[in-house]
């Protein structure tokens, strides 16, 4: 068990800097999800912690030990790869035992640990099979088994579920969470799927273009996104953004209506409202011209254009709502559900 600390981490490939001064403290036993779009540097960051990529500058410590210069083998970590990376010429048992055998652990101990891990993951029946004789989900379990028999200080997951079908992904997601809580091993989990990130992580690190946008609990990220990027990335359907004019605690919309928002800022700002926070109200200030309605059963998504502008807007209403395309619908939102961001930097402006 160990905490991980990332201090001022920089990674460059040639002249290109791909990670810019990443900071983060990970507590003992926490599951941290690093999330972001493709190419944001999340896998690079994970591989740096694993020791598969060199650190250009900055410091990574696991426990109290700075591991920058340590080989992957000496960092006491285990990693689950996206393609599982099982050894194709070895049976499931040999795959799981391999790391222990190298560390010269006694045969009885190896057998005991493999058996135990196989029971936890319910793969006892396949121990003598080769990886090619297993399904995707089973291979995934073996990859996890190989990680847990080692009993490492840190688990690293590199998009482990992205090769599974949707249903299995949800199931494995829950299992990974349960397993991690049961073993209490500090873990870093990389994914580009925001739902996976929200459900799995104790805390989320949102990366964008090599910068940490925000690092906090899922609810913090949802309730108080620090930047426009985080606000748009977390939550589905994603938040609506509209340019507004702020002055003296009110926000002027493009259609001339004003909202009372909790900000003292003035000038052009970006207003963010989540679709699910919009309340249908005939006297509401936010009026949209309906373009399309999506019935999801439990709720309805109303797509349209904001009155007086060509800003696309989505509202989510509970239950079944019907609306003709071209009609005008009005919504309102509570002041605490309005997020205000700086129009140029995209940073959150608090009341």
């Amino acid at each position, binding site marked *: 068990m160990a905490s991980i600390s990332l201090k001022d981490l920089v990674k460059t490939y040639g002249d290109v800097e791909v990670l810019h001064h990443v900071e983060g403290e990970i507590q003992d036993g926490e599951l941290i999800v690093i999330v972001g779009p493709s190419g944001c540097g999340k896998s690079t960051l994970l591989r740096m912690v*694993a*020791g*598969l990529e060199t650190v250009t500058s900055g410091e990574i410590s696991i426990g109290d030990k700075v591991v920058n210069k340590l*080989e*992957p*083998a000496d960092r006491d*970590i*285990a*990693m689950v*790869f*996206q*393609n599982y*990376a*099982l*050894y*194709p*010429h070895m049976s499931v048992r040999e795959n799981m035992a*391999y*790391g222990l055998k*190298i*560390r010269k652990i006694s045969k009885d101990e190896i057998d005991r640990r493999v058996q135990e891990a196989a029971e936890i993951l319910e793969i006892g029946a396949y121990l003598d099979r080769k990886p*090619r004789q297993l399904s995707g989900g089973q291979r995934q379990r073996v990859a996890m088994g*190989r990680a847990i028999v*080692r009993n490492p200080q840190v688990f690293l997951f590199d998009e482990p579920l992205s090769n599974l079908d949707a249903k299995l992904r949800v199931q494995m997601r829950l299992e990974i969470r349960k397993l991690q809580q049961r073993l209490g091993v500090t873990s870093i989990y990389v994914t580009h799927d925001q739902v996976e990130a929200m459900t799995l992580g104790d805390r989320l690190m949102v990366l964008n273009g090599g910068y940490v946008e925000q690092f906090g609990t899922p609810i913090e990220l949802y309730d108080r996104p620090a930047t426009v990027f985080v606000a748009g990335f977390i939550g589905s359907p994603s938040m609506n953004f509209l340019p507004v004019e702020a002055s003296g605690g009110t926000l002027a919309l493009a259609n001339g209506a004003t909202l009372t928002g909790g900000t003292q800022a003035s000038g052009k700002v970006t207003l963010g409202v989540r679709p699910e926070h919009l309340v249908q109200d005939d006297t509401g200030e936010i009026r949209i011209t309906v373009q399309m309605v999506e019935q999801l059963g439990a709720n309805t998504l109303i797509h349209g254009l904001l009155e007086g502008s060509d800003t696309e807007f989505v509202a989510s209403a509970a239950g079944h709502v019907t609306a003709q395309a071209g009609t005008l619908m009005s919504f309102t939102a509570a002041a605490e559900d309005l997020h205000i961001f700086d129009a140029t930097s995209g940073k959150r402006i608090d009341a």
Partner: protein
Amino acid sequence: MLKRVHFPTSALPYLLVAPQIIITLIFFIWPASQAVYQSFLIEDAFGLSSEFVWFENFQILFEDSLYLETFWRTILFSAAVAVLSMGSALILAAFADRVVRGATTYRTLLIWPYAVAPVLAGALWVFMFNPTLGIFPYILEFIGIDWNHYLNGGQAMTLVIFAAAWKQIAYNFLFYLAAMQSIPRSLIEAAAIDGAGPVRRFWDHIFPLISPTTFFLLVINAVYAFFDTFGIIHAVTQGGPANSTTILVYKVFNDGFVGLDLGGSAAQSVILMILVIAMTVVQFRYVERKVEY
């Protein structure tokens, strides 16, 4: 039941395959059958008449201790060539696989020997190892080795083995490198995280995973050593001294065109033909069994 499809009979398909069939018949089947026919004949000493003797040529061969010696020598020669060239190629490929800077240059340079014709390769080695002029005998003298492959059969054999192996390294290297690069990187990374060092990773993962390539190359190298080394041997030692570097294919040439025993030479080539057919069958049957990822 599948319905049989009937096409209107036409000469066109036969015409289209005819060139291939004619070439095969004239250049492969006909000479091969001539060799088989020839192997059943014994000529008289003056070459004026020949007699059909069925398998007597083969009988003579297998009772001839010289031929049996040649047989074993060939096996030793091919084994040495295969092990030496595949071993060197494997080591070079393992390093090339790890090289990051200048990888292309390194690879290109390693492939060059393959473009050298066998006789030229032989000539190169002859110059380097010439007992009076060569650089290597000069160097070897300092460590007390008196090099003269014109007189010493063991040294002559060593020389042709090295020359033949050297020529084949490039080919083996290419196949090994391709095989190594097809192993997913994450697999090797997983092994590194599991605690395996570079040497351990090589023997535990890379070597087993490229075993289909090893098997393929083993057959290819055996065929190479059996048949394609004629040029090298002819240029370097001409089978000598005292037959110590005469392998089967060289003996076929020697008995047939120098000794003028056409029947015996033909019988030997029929035996070689059977050997190469056997090796090809082995290759087709087993090389298909690939390791799956």
